[in-house]
């Protein structure tokens, strides 16, 4: 299955003709609209990732803004040929981790397995809609699985890109993804 971002997008707003690499080059040469287009292209996906990681709309907005700000400041370090989506997701994910570590919700050394309160079968039934049930089941996943499944949702079966964003070995990403899907399926079957 193609990536949601590579394969244009129900999720991403109007596709611009230029490639991300061209837009980065244009932004570096001082074209303000170029970075604006990149923001337009990835704002929603980055916000989605931040929201899934932070589970708070205000914090997710702050992290999204921080991610784009950091990306803008370090645009020169973007390697030509690399995927902009992987780069911006990585910045956003690390911004979220820093914020969470700062809030002492997590140890900064390792993202632990957090037992999130799952919305129980009744709550899932109340959602009615399959999509909403799936969304609720994702919400109920432990942090590490939720992030992997969110990136899988955003980037498709590009395990290497997911591994790059999370700074994890590809084998670990595949294992987390398998467990995440297994948990999701069980949660949806229970429903």
């Amino acid at each position, binding site marked *: *299955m193609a990536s*949601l971002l590579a394969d244009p997008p*129900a*999720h991403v707003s109007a596709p611009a003709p230029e490639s991300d690499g061209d837009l980065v080059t244009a*932004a570096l040469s001082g074209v*303000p609209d170029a*970075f*604006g287009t990149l*923001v*337009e292209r990835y*704002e*929603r*996906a980055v*916000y*989605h990732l931040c*929201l*899934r990681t932070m589970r708070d*709309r205000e914090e*997710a*907005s702050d992290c*999204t*803004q921080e991610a*784009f*700000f950091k990306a*803008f400041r370090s645009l020169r370090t973007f390697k030509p040929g690399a995927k902009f989506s992987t780069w911006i997701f990585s910045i956003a994910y690390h911004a979220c981790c820093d914020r969470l570590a700062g809030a002492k919700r997590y140890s900064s050394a390792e993202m632990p397995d957090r037992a999130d309160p799952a919305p129980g079968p009744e709550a899932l039934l109340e959602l009615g809609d*399959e*999509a909403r049930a*799936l*969304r609720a089941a994702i919400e109920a996943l432990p942090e590490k699985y939720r992030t992997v*499944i969110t990136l*899988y*949702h*955003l980037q*498709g079966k590009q395990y290497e890109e997911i591994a790059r964003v999370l700074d994890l070995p590809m084998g670990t990403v*595949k*294992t987390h993804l*398998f467990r995440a*899907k297994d948990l*999701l*399926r069980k949660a*949806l079957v229970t429903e």
Partner: protein
Amino acid sequence: MNDDFDDLDRALFALPLDEPPSGLRESILRATVYAPLVAPAPFSTIETIGIGIALALATWIAWLCVADHGIIASVDAGALQFVRALADTETFVWLGIGGLVAAWISIAFAQPFQSPFGRRTP
């Protein structure tokens, strides 16, 4: 590892992304591309220090000149001696000799080297 999650994948990829709050994009753009430019400092730190030293030196010399008229007199005498030296015939002779030597060296060594063993073929 059995990866038989086709239905789940379909449902997952059909999920819409969360809608960011209105105004987030504008806020990002205001903080990045449309952020007010901070005017760069006209001089680097080293240049600023150099200018400061030069100004301090100039102030000190000016103060010396104002406070001690003897310095003005000695500077005046030095300048007068220099002008007199330039007007002296002996100085002009030595200047002429120096100029001629410089011209000779320039002409002698600016020529292409001729091999003593034969002519160069074009």
